């Protein structure tokens, strides 16, 4: 257990930040420096330094803190590009704090950062799309036609759809695009596999629904595949980090900074709460209806419950966003 003299650090930081307005950004930086200083002091003490001396040494090593604070203000005004826009070196960069209209247009930024697709990728995409189309047609024919071994042929056709689409997904995700960096290979493979698995599972369930004598194994194989894919998607989605390029982030940032003041959800908490409650009731009812219909009538028709709920949900959204038939802009005053 290291017991270090924290008061020296606190006093020092309070002194340095004394005359600076404590914006969230500045507060954030102050806490970060405090954490790093504490780590350094703990390390010095572990090697046998006197607590106060350790604090002083850590502070001395930190160097010129004012320089860092000064940069905080400048940062808002300009962000140096990372490997961007060599052609645009001579012209001024779009400023974050610039008034709307002064900044470089999205189109201009897009053209400057344009990335052409790899010819090989385009060729692969066309081929895989063709394979998918052939597979889809074969699958539909097998579903409609009543051949003796139709389950087998439909399953094979589904594979012809699922595998090319999975490959397509992986292939597109590892490509660098105008707005996005390529995804690391293992993540792209994960997304591709999940897509192939969920398509395969859904294809099996489709066969189950279409078959005249219901084959239980189709469900027993299909449902776990779909569940597995959903779990995999959830994991990938939850661990997904930013892959947008810096310029695209900037455009997005500008867009939201200058966008119309929010939507009705943010302006009118009562409407938002109503919307939430209605949606909750709607979907609980839909799930209940789905279960009842599944038991009473069967899976062939019970999905109608969800379809109806979706329609009502759309109407709810429309009613929420456009109250009394007015577009949202007329009910808001500019910020």
């Amino acid at each position, binding site marked *: 257990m290291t017991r*270090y003299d*924290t008061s020296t*650090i606190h006093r020092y930081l309070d002194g340095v930040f004394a005359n600076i307005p404590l914006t969230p950004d500045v507060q*954030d*930086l102050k*806490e*970060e*420096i*405090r*954490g*790093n*200083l*504490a*780590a*350094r*002091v*703990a*390390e*010095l003490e572990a*090697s046998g330094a006197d607590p106060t001396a350790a604090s002083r040494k850590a502070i001395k*090593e*930190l*160097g*010129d*803190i004012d*320089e*860092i604070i000064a*940069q*905080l203000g400048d*940062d808002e005004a300009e*962000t*140096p590009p*990372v*490997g961007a826009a060599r052609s645009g070196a001579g012209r001024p960069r779009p400023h974050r704090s610039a008034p709307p209209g002064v900044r470089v247009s999205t189109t201009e930024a897009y053209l400057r950062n344009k990335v052409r697709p790899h010819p090989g990728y385009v060729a692969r995409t066309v081929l895989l799309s063709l394979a998918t189309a052939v597979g889809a047609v074969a699958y539909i024919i097998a579903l409609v036609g009543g051949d003796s071994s139709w389950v087998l042929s439909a399953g094979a056709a589904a594979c012809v759809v699922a595998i090319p689409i999975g490959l397509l997904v992986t292939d597109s995700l590892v490509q*660098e695009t105008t707005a*996005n*960096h*390529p*995804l*690391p290979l293992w*993540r792209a493979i994960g997304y591709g596999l999940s897509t192939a698995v969920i398509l395969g599972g859904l294809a099996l369930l489709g066969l189950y629904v279409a078959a005249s004598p219901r084959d239980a194994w189709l469900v027993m194989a299909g449902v776990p595949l779909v569940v597995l894919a959903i779990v995999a998607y959830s994991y990938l989605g939850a661990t*997904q*980090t*930013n*892959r*947008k*390029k*810096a310029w695209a*982030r900037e455009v997005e940032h500008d867009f939201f900074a200058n966008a119309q003041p929010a939507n009705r959800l943010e302006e009118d908490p009562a409407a938002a709460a109503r919307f939430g409650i209605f949606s909750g009731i709607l979907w609980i009812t839909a799930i209940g209806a789905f279960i009842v219909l599944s038991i009473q009538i069967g899976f062939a028709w019970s999905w109608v419950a969800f379809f109806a709920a979706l329609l009502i949900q759309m109407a709810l959204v429309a009613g929420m966003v456009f109250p009394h038939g007015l577009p949202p802009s007329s009910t808001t005053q500019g910020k």
Partner: protein
Amino acid sequence: MADNTKASKGTTPASEAFASDLLRGHTDTIVLATLRDTDRYGYEIYKTIRDATGGEYEIKEATLYATFRRLVNDGLVEAHWGDESQGGRRKYYAITDAGRAVFRRAVADWTATQRIINTLLELKGSPS
């Protein structure tokens, strides 16, 4: 280890000044490199860089804070606070997919540049 840093701070030979000039241009890439396998907080990054070079090269902490801000703004790293209860809370940085892509590109660029420079320098040194 502690003595090492003190020594390098006091004396700055001419050759080292040149090297650190060259190195400074790669600060972003160096920071991204330290984050490839695990999330780290500011001082840890500083220490990792210092120790990896045996104390030969250290990036000024002020420079590092500016680098972190830039990397976060560009979406190459994401910051999150740790849950330390004692002392100061630590702000951890994690590399993003964009960060990995930029890092890979930077390494490829550097490797190519290095090869060219080496070739050119050898060319000059060799008897014609």
